[in-house]
């Protein structure tokens, strides 16, 4: 059973950031937070419901960036026409996150702020070089994915900060994402994109504590065997460490093949 807590339902972002603290936390889809609370891993005294804050769920595009509100659900992103046309790789990845209920409830912001290592979003957003905009009463700051994700379930977000939106540079790098998934979270996820400056960028997710980013001038320079040797996955119900290393090697090779064919 869940512990007791208060719920507040602000209608403006500044009302949210006024009350955030170590004990009073942002709450949206609950697909991560409520599970952690059920297990007793988190015991906040108050939840600040973000679902009734207009604007936090908006998706908009400019000449230079696609902005995705942190309160947008995975389903919102997957089905949004702006995302489908300007960042098709992200839209495709979002159609396959978790299961249909998690996609309908879970938000981009929740997924990122929990920083569960087995996350499709962490890998694909690292690949397309997204940046994250955080706001608090102290002001606003923008972080790259590698600055934001510090470790498993550990980000640079301060307790009084709210992740407001994700900013994806336009034009969005095209490429591919491949994953092996037998439970609700990926066992191995790999992304490969070609950046606008022509650089090849490969990201390995889920078998690492934070997304592993490898850049090269050509795909031939990236060695799947060396990457598989480098990662140190844990053995669990989804497979042994050796098995995950093997799948990593195979999927890195395959995703590079897909990216060489153009990808999305």
């Amino acid at each position, binding site marked *: 059973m869940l512990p*007791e807590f*208060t*719920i507040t339902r602000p209608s403006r972002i500044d009302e949210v950031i006024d009350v955030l603290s170590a004990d009073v936390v942002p709450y949206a889809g*609950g697909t991560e937070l409520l599970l952690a609370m059920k297990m007793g891993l988190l015991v906040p005294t108050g939840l600040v419901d973000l679902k009734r804050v207009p604007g936090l769920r908006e998706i908009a595009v400019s000449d230079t960036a696609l902005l995705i509100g942190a309160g947008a659900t995975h389903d919102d992103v997957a089905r949004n026409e702006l995302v489908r046309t300007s960042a098709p790789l992200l839209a495709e990845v979002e159609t396959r996150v978790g299961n249909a209920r998690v996609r*309908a409830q879970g938000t981009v912001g929740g997924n990122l702020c929990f920083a569960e290592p087995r996350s499709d979003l962490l890998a694909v957003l690292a690949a397309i070089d997204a940046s994250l905009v955080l706001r608090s009463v102290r002001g606003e700051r923008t972080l790259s994915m590698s600055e934001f994700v510090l470790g498993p379930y550990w980000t640079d977000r301060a307790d009084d900060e709210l992740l407001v939106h994700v900013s994806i540079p336009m034009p969005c790098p095209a490429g591919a994402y491949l994953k092996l998934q037998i*439970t609700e979270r990926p066992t191995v996820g790999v992304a490969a994109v070609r950046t606008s400056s022509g650089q090849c960028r490969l990201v390995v997710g889920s078998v690492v504590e934070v997304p592993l980013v490898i850049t090269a001038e050509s795909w031939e320079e990236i060695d799947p065997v060396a990457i598989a040797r480098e990662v140190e996955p844990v053995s669990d119900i989804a497979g042994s460490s050796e098995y995950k290393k093997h799948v990593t090697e195979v999927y890195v090779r395959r995703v590079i093949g897909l990216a060489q064919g153009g990808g999305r």
Partner: protein
Amino acid sequence: MSEPHVSETKSATTSRPGSATEVATTVNGVAHRSWVANRTTLASFLRDGLTLTGTKVSCELQVCGVCSVLVDGQPVSSCTYLAADVDGRTVETVEGLASGERLHALQQAFVRNFALQCGFCTPGFLMMSKALLERNPDPTEDEVREYLDGNICRCTGYQPIVAAVLEAAAEMRGGRSA
């Protein structure tokens, strides 16, 4: 300040002011208004508070799908969803599918195809299938399998469930739905 009255859900006992929320919701077309403890899940609110026990609870990790219900048409795992969040929203459960004695097209197709054995997972499969057909009235077999891959059935082997959903979809498109 007086303690808010908390409606008679078993898990809704509360001792701390501010730990309950007044909820006005419509469940299967019936309006309800009551105070619920913030920590009450939607599954508990439906089963214990409204005695709508068609919604089942099993894994409590939003993995198995037996607790699936629709909130404003969107599928949710009611085991991991706060009852407070249905305030101002509409809930549909398996009890709302049939019209009187007349089963919904999905229910009829499940019966015809033997798409259930023990029946424990069936309410979840029915509600997820309803959500799927509302957004995609003409799904392919792959789309049905993909949408339902977050629901677990240990009896049927899934084939008759997929067949039933495709059959119900065809029937509903033909305008002969329940």
